[in-house]
């Protein structure tokens, strides 16, 4: 969507207002060139840059959430297409379904052959429904699992892109045992002897995200979020109010920076100023170089060490008192 004008979010309104003023002034100058209006324009442009920089470096949790859920945010296929325009898609769980909310494929990533999986959201309303708003069915997790086994068999590293509100609260999903599908992925991912790198590119929603997130390295895009429950769910349970989403975001510490500080994320990948949707190419390139760097580092580990590295990483998560 780099050619389409980004839709401003609520917290971006001051910026949008200033942009309108600048546009109006430019129009005026175009009609009457010369004069002191040029100075005003320069001043306004400077102000705009300053505001933009300070705005995006002081975001609240709920602002990051809005950026992570931005309707124009690049999705899994947008990254795959930019990394390797001729990537090969792999379909189906071999058991009766091909979940469009989980995209799997074989990619060349800067000369490295990888198995890539990622949750997929839709752009148009039809696409959104087709992809179930980025919420895989159990079949989607099992399709990913098939690819993990493929990677293990052919000694290929795995890259997982996470952008999902979570698992789907639906009848089919429960009857087909989504809890088991998620649990088995956690178990099997932990045992792989090839490198696994996961990236939260947008929303990292609970168990549905973790199902493709048990990795040697966990990266997060600058404005992505990762949480144990959706902030809406948290607000309705703990505050008993749908209006307390901002409070829930803050309390759960779900931004990339906070997840890094808690020791769960290993690196925060910077996004183009204003968010990944401002510049797809730049976002894809910067994520790719981060991924390649981590994959090259992990390539130095022996197969058994890759498994141990991943298991000990997760073994150490938790905070408690022992006395």
């Amino acid at each position, binding site marked *: 969507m780099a050619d389409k004008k980004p839709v401003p979010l609520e917290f971006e309104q001051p910026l949008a207002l200033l942009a309108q003023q600048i546009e109006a002034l430019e129009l005026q100058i175009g009609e009457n060139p010369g004069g002191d209006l040029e100075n005003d324009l320069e001043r306004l442009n400077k102000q705009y840059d300053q505001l933009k920089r300070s705005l995006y470096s002081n975001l609240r949790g709920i602002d990051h959430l809005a950026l992570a859920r931005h309707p124009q945010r690049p999705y899994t296929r947008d990254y795959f297409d930019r990394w390797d325009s001729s990537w090969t898609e792999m379909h189906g769980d071999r058991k009766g379904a091909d979940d469009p909310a989980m995209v799997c494929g074989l990619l060349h990533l800067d000369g490295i052959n990888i198995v890539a999986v990622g949750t997929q959201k839709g752009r148009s309303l039809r696409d959104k429904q087709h992809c179930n708003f980025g919420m895989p069915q159990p079949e989607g997790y099992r399709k990913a699992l098939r690819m993990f086994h493929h990677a293990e068999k052919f000694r290929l590293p795995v890259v997982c892109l996470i952008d999902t509100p979570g698992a789907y609260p639906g009848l089919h999903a*429960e009857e087909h045992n989504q809890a088991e599908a998620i649990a088995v992925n956690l178990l099997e991912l932990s045992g792989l002897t090839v490198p696994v790198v996961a990236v939260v590119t947008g929303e990292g929603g609970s168990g549905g995200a973790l199902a493709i997130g048990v990795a040697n390295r966990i990266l997060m895009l600058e404005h992505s979020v990762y949480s144990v429950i959706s902030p809406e769910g948290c607000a309705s349970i703990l505050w008993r109010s749908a209006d307390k989403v901002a409070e829930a975001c803050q309390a759960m510490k779900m931004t990339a920076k906070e997840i890094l500080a808690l020791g769960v994320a290993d690196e925060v990948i910077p996004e183009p100023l204003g968010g990944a949707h401002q510049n797809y190419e730049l976002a894809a390139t910067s994520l790719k170089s981060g991924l390649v760097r981590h994959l090259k580092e992990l390539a130095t580990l022996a197969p058994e060490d890759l498994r141990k590295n991943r298991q000990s990483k997760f073994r150490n998560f938790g905070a408690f008192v022992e006395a």
Partner: protein
Amino acid sequence: MDLKEWFANRKKKTEQGEVKQPLTTEEYCALWTQCFQCRELLYTRDLRSNLDVCPKCQYHFRVGAEQRIEQLVDAGSFVETEAKLSSADPLGFVDSEPYPKRLLEAERRSGLKEAIITGVGNIEDQKAALGIMDFGHFGGSMGSVVGEKVTRLVEKAEKERLPLILISSSGGARMQEGILSLMQLAKTSSALKSFSDAGLLYISILSEPTYGGVTASFAMLGDMIIAEPGARVGFAGRRVIEQTIRQKLPADFQTAEYLMSHGQVDMVIERHKLKEALAGLIKFHGQALKPSSVIQQKGAALYSR
């Protein structure tokens, strides 16, 4: 004193106005329990001695971890492990109340330090590693401590080559520890991977209710999965699903019997038969629990008796 004296005393007391006061509501509730299913008023002591199963309609009440140990483990054989672990407050979490305050409150109400008790005990003379969750403590939610205790138990069972039994009862991951709670799903599942690769036996028991992150990790990873009658088990809760799909769900949705008919559990076993069933399953798989060297030595003789 003899009966005559006793009556005389009683009469005297009554005359002096020392009759027993009627029970307070609290005492009354402790004495009697109404069955959730058939509404029968049950004498609590009788209910307890019937393993918390309604004698009239067989409704299986929730069981606390300590009672469950009494019901399942040979008397005097249980040795608790990791009793010293307690929750920290890694996020400085505050909603309407700070998390540490809620923890104290949970401890006061349940008498437990955390939502699981782990240890080693005998089931009909067979040693097993046991983890028993307690819904009465913080809704049985899994935070860092529950995850750590389960993980240490799995590691201990692997090291000592013991069968592992986990009894789940949980509302899911504990929100107050944020992402660290979510990571406990992966931590416990990862420990079970090594355990399973070592050829050891894990029996998962699902009890009323088991949801969310616990279902989506160790509870669904048993070599065998047993559910208690009527227990409700799932990932997403019934109400959330109904709100999402705008559709009424079947009355027996997510019950043990429903899970059974959808291929999600091996068996539904009533509480009175649970201990015997566990003992039988452990015995059946006993060969696998011997050190791997012994199994290898026996080689082809493995199947002969």
